[in-house]
């Protein structure tokens, strides 16, 4: 069974998700994990699917007009990687170069693995929200490092535990 990583990016339009999903379904691709969003009006989809070979999937997506696609064969997930504690980082402030780089470098330096991240620029306000798995006990020191980085960037940062209630 082939496992493929596929990205599709292009100007957003009605029906684009359906078109991508249909093209892949026609070559027998089973979508497993996927994410799709609009980034400043651009449609952006990233997905993992199983079934067809990379050339088969590429051919299926060729027919889609106006989008850029990339298909790559990948190895199945090695481990679930659910070690550590889940934390959330919020950053907000005036937009400037290097906010994401500086903040994520601090998280990496603490041994943290970012599992989800989104940023928004609205007017002059830049907002970054990241979820990260941190080694047990690493939160406090990372909070101090983030505070220093944020102060240098002139932005506000908050680090807190992600809450998950299982019902």
């Amino acid at each position, binding site marked *: 069974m082939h496992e493929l990583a596929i990205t599709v990016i292009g100007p957003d339009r009605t029906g684009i998700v359906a078109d991508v999903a249909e093209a892949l379904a026609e070559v027998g691709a089973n979508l497993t994990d996927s994410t799709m969003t609009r980034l400043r009006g651009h449609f952006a989809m990233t997905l993992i699917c199983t079934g067809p070979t990379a050339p088969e999937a590429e051919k299926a997506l060729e027919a889609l007009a106006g989008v850029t696609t990339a298909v790559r064969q990948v190895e199945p997930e090695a481990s679930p990687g659910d070690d550590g504690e889940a934390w959330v980082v919020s950053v907000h402030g005036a937009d400037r170069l290097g906010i994401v780089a500086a903040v994520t470098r601090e998280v990496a330096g603490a041994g943290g693995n970012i599992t989800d991240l989104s940023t928004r620029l*609205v007017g002059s306000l830049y*907002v970054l929200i990241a979820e990260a798995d941190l080694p047990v006990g690493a939160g406090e020191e990372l909070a101090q490092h983030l505070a220093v980085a944020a102060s240098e960037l002139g932005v506000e940062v908050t680090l807190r535990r992600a809450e998950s209630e299982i019902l």
Partner: protein
Amino acid sequence: MISPELPEGKILPVITAPASVLSTVGDEVDPIDPAVIQLAADLIATMKISPGCVGLAAPQVGIGTQIFCVNVVGHPKAVTTHGAFALCNAKIIEASRWKAGREGCMSVPDLTGDVKRAGRIVVSAVLPGSGEAVTITTDGFEARALQHEIDHCAGKLFLDRVAGAHAIYQRKVYL
């Protein structure tokens, strides 16, 4: 209505993030200082003319102090309500029944976010004008509004509490 008589309020411009006053811990105020009493009236007046506004804190009008007003009367999510009122130096002394909900802010006009807040709180504060100490027990949307405003007075925005990377949303324009 729990507020004492306040003077007539002026409409103040509301500032938006990024602005350092929104991220600065507000100073405690003297509730019988005439400037504080006027500010309470101004906050209420500004809240009243702002469509959809259920609360406004001093940092949002550029003043880094612990004073805010709230009015959730008539809001569909409100359960207990205490009318339109202003509080100084408010502190949450009990919080329970935590629940996620989506909230916005006049100082972050383009985004909303999912934030967990206590569904029942007890707040201690003093009233502007009389300086009377009050303890307010409330729930539901009024509890959420109070927590949002108390956060403003502590230099926190809802962005500092959103649940995760996919818990902020570009705001739809309804008005």
